[in-house]
């Protein structure tokens, strides 16, 4: 006669990340990170082609600049930028090392990081790519 409790097992829905905007932004952030690895491979291939000589290198560069690849690149680039921005947000939200007595609000840390990012980008333009 004693009743055994029958729990109803909960199953996560496959499209969970469409449930709210924050989950979706998270998935895009993660996708952005993966795209970065993809670009890492593209850059590696650029070095391979550079090593192989001018014609191989230029052929590869031309392939990158054909309209379909170029427009795909624009979309992926947006994800890379989103990934960078979310990374700056995460730094402020996590702060495993605290430099101030009170943790700074994440928006402040985000702002500092964006400024830093602009500075670093400028430095890259001059130091790596020889300026404008």
């Amino acid at each position, binding site marked *: 006669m*004693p*009743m055994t*409790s029958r729990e109803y097992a909960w199953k996560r829905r496959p499209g969970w990340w469409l449930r709210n905007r924050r989950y979706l932004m998270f998935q895009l952030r993660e996708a952005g990170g993966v795209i970065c690895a993809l670009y890492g491979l593209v850059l590696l291939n650029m070095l391979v082609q550079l090593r192989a000589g001018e014609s191989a290198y230029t052929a590869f560069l031309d392939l990158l600049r054909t309209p379909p690849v170029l427009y795909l690149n624009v979309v992926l680039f947006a994800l890379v930028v989103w990934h960078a921005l979310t990374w700056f947000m995460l730094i402020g939200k996590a702060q495993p090392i605290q430099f101030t007595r009170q943790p700074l609000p994440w928006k402040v840390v985000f702002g500092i990081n964006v400024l830093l990012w602009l500075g670093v980008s400028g430095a890259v333009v001059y130091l790596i790519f020889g300026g404008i």
Partner: protein
Amino acid sequence: MKRTVYAADKVGFHILHTLFQTSMKYDRIHRFDEYFVTSLIVDGGACAGVVAMNLRGGTMVAIQGKATILATGGCGRVYEFTTNGFIKTGDGMALAYRAGVPLKDMEMVQFHPTCLPGTGILITEAARGEGGYLVNKDGERYMQRYLPSKMELGPRDILSRAMIQEMKAGRAFEGPYGLYMGLDLRHLGAKKINERIPMVRELVEKYMGLDPIHELIPVRPGQHYIMGGVSTNGKGETTLPGLYAVGETACVSINGANRLGSNSLSECLVFGAACGLAAAGFAKKKASYPRGAAAREALKKEEARVFDGVLGRERAKETVAGLRVEMQQLMERDVGIFREESALADACGMLGKMRDRFAAVGLADKDRVFNTELTAVLELDFMLDVALAIAHSARNRRESRGAHSRTDFPQRDDANYLKHTLAFRTDGPPRIDYVPVTVTKWQPVERKY
């Protein structure tokens, strides 16, 4: 010497979680989460454990033990407006009461003056301590009429009574949840409010939708604490060997007729430790484990009472929610802040009738697993016992003392009532008896401000 220590405005919260988390250190502590105790097992004049309903499994079990400690908190849900949680239905008090243990000083019910109407959420004393005003609808600091020397810093019982008098004089605000007074913090300014009483602002914003920096906080008195409870000595021992009680459930008599803030926590920490040691010592000394036969018998009896009896009743006119609200409103009106003979007599009679009507409360939910309608019925059963003890204890104390305020007997009467009330359960109304008060260092004197 400081009277109390604190952890910001969350003392009880931190004690609770520290105790719970630290309990995980000990493998031999076996928790029965979400078991609902329906009765004590009494064998040979001693408590031998409890019969409990496993809510998740929907079964009844007997849990045997040499020593049993009741730590179930208060009984605020007996009243309509209370700062207590929904589960504070006086279960522990009723369990001991049914096992023949008297309830002591049950008429001593503390009302806190500043609760949010509707929910009964408590706005801490600190709001007034930091300089908050209590005002009526004319914007007047009405406490000047009642306690000019202390104003808003007077004791809880006097502030609560002054509120009721203002309401009766027609100087209260009227809102969706009835009459209320205003707690004015606006003159303190945003800085002070945010620094000193952030929890007050958070609660009012979240649960009232108002910002105390710019608006009056609506407040009214609500039941907050019961000074009475299961009669125990300083070690938590009751008159039933093997049964202990502690905290708000118990009445050690450290609160007399009027509790001071934070003393509830001393009850938990100081008397909790004393009670635990006493119970452990008792269990160690007791040679034999309780017999299984008594437990089996009690289990069978409870299964029949709860599953075949209560759960078997068909739902009809009388509902658990209906009867509960009726009882709560009755207690609020007649056994509340102000009391007098005819109202108390009426309440005692009505509660007696409700006891009979309770037998007709039926249930719609027939499931055994997690049946919260069933637990609500069992809780109402407990509450009716406790309410009867409160009403009869109050009716028999024909004087005013501390939180117990009789309009027909406004004076304190030490000649006749410097004594503790004991309520014993009978098949009819409770039998009221008295025991003398032990006065040690501080002689009772008149309260003067």
